[in-house]
C-alpha cells in the first residue's frame, strides 16, 4: 500500500509531524487522492509498531510536538518499493458499469439517456482539469512538472472514458429502441 511508502519517501528528506506529512502527501498525489489526517496518523501508528518509523517528542505542555523519523528498516523498505513497478493498476470500478448492466436489456432508452448524462459529467471534469492545468502553466509553483503529469493522466483517462461512451452509444443505438426490437434467434 503506497500511503505507507509515500510517508517513508517524505520522511527520507527529514523528520516531519503528522500534519506536514498530510500536506506533502497531497502534493505528491496532486490532491487527486482523498486522504484525511486521521488516516495518516493511523498509518504512522502501524508503521511505528512495524519499526519503519520512530516517534520523537520535544517540548512540553502547549509546545509539545510529535515528529516522526524514518528508521533504517524504513529506508530499506522504501528503496525496495521504489524499484518495484506496481503489478496491479487501479481497479476499473465504476458505478455506471452497474447501471449500464442493469439497463441494457431492460430499458435501452434509459441507458442511452444515462450515457448522455455521463458524457456531460466527463466534459465538465475535463473542463475542470483543464482549468487547473492552465493555472498551473501560468504559475512557477515548485513540483509543477509532477502535478502537470498527474493532470495529464487524469485528462487522458477521462478522454478514454468518453471514447468508450461513444462506443456504448453506437452499440446500443444499433440494437434499436428497446428489448422488443430484438428478435430471438430462429
Amino acid at each position: 500500500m503506497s500511503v505507507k511508502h509515500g510517508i517513508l519517501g517524505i520522511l527520507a528528506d527529514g523528520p516531519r509531524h503528522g500534519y506536514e506529512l498530510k500536506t506533502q502527501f497531497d502534493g505528491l498525489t496532486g490532491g487527486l487522492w482523498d486522504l484525511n489526517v486521521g488516516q495518516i496518523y493511523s498509518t504512522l501508528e502501524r508503521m511505528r509498531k512495524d519499526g519503519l518509523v520512530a516517534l520523537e517528542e520535544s517540548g512540553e505542555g502547549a509546545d509539545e510536538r510529535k515528529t516522526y523519523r524514518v528508521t533504517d528498516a524504513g529506508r530499506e523498505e522504501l528503496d525496495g518499493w521504489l524499484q518495484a513497478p506496481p503489478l496491479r493498476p487501479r481497479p476499473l470500478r465504476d458505478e455506471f458499469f452497474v447501471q449500464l448492466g442493469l439497463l441494457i436489456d431492460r430499458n435501452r432508452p434509459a441507458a442511452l439517456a444515462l450515457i448522455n448524462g455521463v458524457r456531460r459529467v466527463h466534459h465538465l471534469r475535463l473542463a475542470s482539469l483543464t482549468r487547473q492545468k492552465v493555472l498551473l502553466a501560468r504559475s512557477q509553483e515548485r513540483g509543477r512538472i509532477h502535478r502537470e503529469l498527474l493532470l495529464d493522466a487524469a485528462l487522458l483517462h477521462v478522454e478514454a472514458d468518453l471514447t468508450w461512451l461513444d462506443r456504448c452509444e453506437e452499440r446500443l443505438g444499433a440494437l434499436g429502441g428497446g428489448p422488443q426490437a430484438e428478435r430471438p434467434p430462429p
Partner: protein
Amino acid sequence: MRDAIITLDGATRRFKRGHAVITAVDAISLAVERGTFTAIMGKSGSGKSTLLHLMSGLLTPDAGRVELLGNDAGQLSDNDLTLLRRDYIGFIFQFFNLLPSLTAAENVALPLLLARRPRGQALSRAREMLATMGLADRVDHKPDELSGGQMQRVAIARALINDPPLLFADEPTGNLDSVAGEEVLLLLKDLQTRQGRTIVMVTHDAKAAAYGDRIITLRDGRVQQDIATGGVAV
C-alpha cells in the same frame, strides 16, 4: 440571449451526392453570445464543418435563418458577405493555409495588402502581430522553415490582422502534437478572456474542446448535446 453575435434559427444545409441528397446540417437553432468560446464536436461527417461555414457566412442556408453580426446572412449579396468576413471575421484552419512562397510577415500582412493598404505599413503591423505571438525571430522565415505550432501561430496572427471580433477555427490542433496544440489552445483562450473575442472552434479532441466554455456535440447534422462547462478562467 443577452448579446448574440450569431443566431441560427432552423438553419439547414443540404448537399447532393449522386442522386441522393444529404442533409449535412438539419434545422439547427442556437445562439452564440459575444465573448464566449464554443467548441463543436462530433464524429466525422456529423456536420461540424458545414455548421461552422453556415455560422461564418462561408455558406448560406437552404432553409432557416442565420443572423451574423446583426445581418441576415441569407439576404446579403456575395460581395457583402465577403466584406463582412474580411472586416469582422478571422479563420484558422487545420492545415494553416499559408502561402509557401511568402515569408511569415508577408503571409500575415496579406489581408491588408489585398485590401490595398500601403505595403510598408502592412508589413510593420504584421511584424508587431507576430512579435505578440512570440515569433519576433521568425518574421522573415518561409512556412517550410517553421514548425507546425509556429505555422499555426502565424495563421492566427493573419486571422487577427484586421482585429476581428469573431474567430472561427476548424480543427486548429488537428495537425499538431500535444505540446504545440496546447500552446495554440492557450493562445485562443487568451484571445477570448483577455481580448474579449468570440471564438467558435471545431474539434474532434475532447481535451481541446475543454478549453471552451460551451461544448456542442453534433450527430447526423443535429445538436446531440449542448454543455455549458463553466470554461477555463485565465
